[in-house]
């Protein structure tokens, strides 16, 4: 938020029935918007043949930004999944870094071009490296939480997956272990209605992912994942409670994938157009803008200003990233084993 200083600073005082300050609300909008605009540019680059693969979070920005803002940055861990661009931005990833990652550039901090885009990881920011294999990260999150408990380190681990991934054995083993040991983990499932082409009825016998918590006597919650403020207000108390030793939580954010599964997917094969159109009306960005504008938290101009700032930031990041060095062939070697310093 480089240019922020040039503008009147927002009050940090919590606003009634938002539980968020002006400052936080601005951040919220900024991060959601930044995630969306980055994803849009990424898809454009893909269509131009400059990025072989894009997997995006369009439609899930509220679910991601609202949840990530409930974390203590630098203290809490995030074991994300491939759509979580919004979360990574909240935890400190820059637009430039996002583009380095997309392009698999040499200096991509997540994997230096070794993994596909959106496979984030950054030890300094406590973002846990992940593979493409779904649900494995749920166990890593539980393991970090176990370690923190053993060390009396008051941190919380938030880990994410889609609703389809809750069918994996690792989902069961992770929730089972975390519940038995009352670990500070938030299992955060972004239910966007589909696992590629499969709608939820093919994935689960229960109407809600949150229902799966019952088999573990685990606390659970459901939230409108298109409403960033509601998400924050749901996740924050769960995080605080987990930090106080209250044990794990399963939270389901009901959202929707506004785009295809990835840049390789044609969702018209399996998704009714009408359904998509219904959800587009609930676009988290429009929803948020509408509410804060209506309540008069920010005048329209200010919101427009944020939009311009984001556009600019993204434009600059893309230009910059495209010029950055690619990995060389031999960069494929190295770090197969970690050597002691």
């Amino acid at each position, binding site marked *: 938020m480089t240019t922020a200083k040039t503008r009147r600073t927002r009050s940090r005082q919590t606003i009634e029935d938002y539980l968020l300050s002006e400052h936080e609300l601005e951040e919220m909008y900024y991060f959601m918007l930044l995630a969306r605009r980055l994803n849009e540019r990424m898809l454009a680059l893909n269509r131009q043949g400059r990025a*072989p*693969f894009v997997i995006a979070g369009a439609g899930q920005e509220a679910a991601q930004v609202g949840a990530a803002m409930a974390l203590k940055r630098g203290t809490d861990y995030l074991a994300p999944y491939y759509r979580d661009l919004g979360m990574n931005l909240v935890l400190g990833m820059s637009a430039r870094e996002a583009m380095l990652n997309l392009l*698999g*550039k040499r200096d991509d901090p997540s*994997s230096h*071009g*070794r*993994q*596909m*885009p959106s*496979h984030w990881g950054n030890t300094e920011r406590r973002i846990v490296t992940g*593979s*493409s*294999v*779904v649900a494995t990260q749920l166990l890593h999150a539980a393991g970090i939480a176990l370690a923190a408990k053993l060390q009396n380190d008051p941190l919380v681990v938030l880990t994410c997956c889609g609703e*389809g*991934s809750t*069918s*994996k*054995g*690792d989902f069961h083993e992770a929730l089972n272990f975390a519940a038995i040991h009352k670990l500070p983990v938030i299992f955060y499932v972004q239910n966007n209605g589909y*696992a*590629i*082409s*499969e709608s939820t009825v*093919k*994935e*689960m016998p229960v109407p809600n992912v949150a229902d799966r918590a019952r088999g573990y006597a685990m606390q659970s919650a459901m939230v409108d994942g298109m409403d960033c403020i509601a998400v924050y207000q749901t996740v924050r108390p769960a995080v605080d409670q987990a930090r106080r030793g209250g044990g794990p939580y399963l939270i389901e954010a009901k959202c929707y994938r506004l785009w295809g599964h990835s840049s*390789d*997917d044609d969702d018209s*094969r*399996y998704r009714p157009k009408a359904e998509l159109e219904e959800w587009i009306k609930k676009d988290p960005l429009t929803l948020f803008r509408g509410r804060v504008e209506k309540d008069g938290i920010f005048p329209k101009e200010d919101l427009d200003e944020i939009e311009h700032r984001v556009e600019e930031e993204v434009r600059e990041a893309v230009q910059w990233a495209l010029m950055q060095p*690619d*990995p*060389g*062939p*031999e*960069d*494929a*070697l190295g770090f*197969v084993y970690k050597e002691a310093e």
Partner: protein
Amino acid sequence: MAAVTVLEAVRQTLDEALASDDRVFIIGEDVEAGGVFRVTDGLKAKYPERLIDSPLAESSIIGISIGAAHYGMRPVAEIQFADFIHSGFDQLCSEASRWSYRTNGDAYLPMVVRTPWGGGVHGGQHHSQSIEAYYTHMPGLKVVAPAFPADYASLLKASIADLNPVLFLEHKRTYRLMRQELNGAPAETRLGHARVTRQGSDLTIIAYGLMLHESLAAAEELANEGIDCLVVDLLTLLPLDQETILESAKATGKVLIVHEDTLTGGLGGEISALIAEHAFEYLDAPIRRLAAPDIPAMPYHHAMESFFMPDRTKIAAAARELAAY
């Protein structure tokens, strides 16, 4: 009958199997919509009950297929990418591969697990893997990895007819690589048989999957230089066709084994060991292996990806050296 791609050959074969035997069904992620590679496109409409979208859970895809095959069905399971079969390793290793053995043949599993493997598609670490080395160390399982459309068709048909669990590997890069007339083209109809795809007298190249095509291209190039390569297409990786491997090694006395998988612990070691033990007297040179470097899996960026993958140029270079030995 028109010339078809590997993709079309696989789809046609599945269609014919579904049409001719109502015990055959297809289960996997997104198969009803055609799958991510569109292999099963159109089949749901023709066989509504027998295309089954599974939940996102590979151990269940394999475990369910085991149960169904035990009952007497002919399941053809699809694992969306070979890279995601790992969580089904236990069901394949501890259960499927041992079913007949542990019951002395009283029970058996006529099932196929199809999965796209291999790299060169910007798939990065988890959409590019070679998995054959793990599964060729599982007696009781059969592993097939064709290269040409006609062999894909004939060997998939044979795999579905086989009474044992078959891991059928489909190299992504071969899906649309070429077309072949299904009748007329040479097609191996038996599991466990390799083919000498090109005769030659100077040295023997042994390969499979995409690397078979790269090896043939290299052989062409070398022919112009007067180096005459014999090329073996393994086709079935377990059980291995030892006879063809040994005969081809003896025929030239020089052997280059090529695979896309990483070197250490790769299938090339087994092939080399067979030759070093049973064709030793015929060898005129060290047995060479050309494979990917020992890093966990294929990197994403194309510069590193092409560094990782063997190709016709690297094969030709290795073969030249060997010929000059």
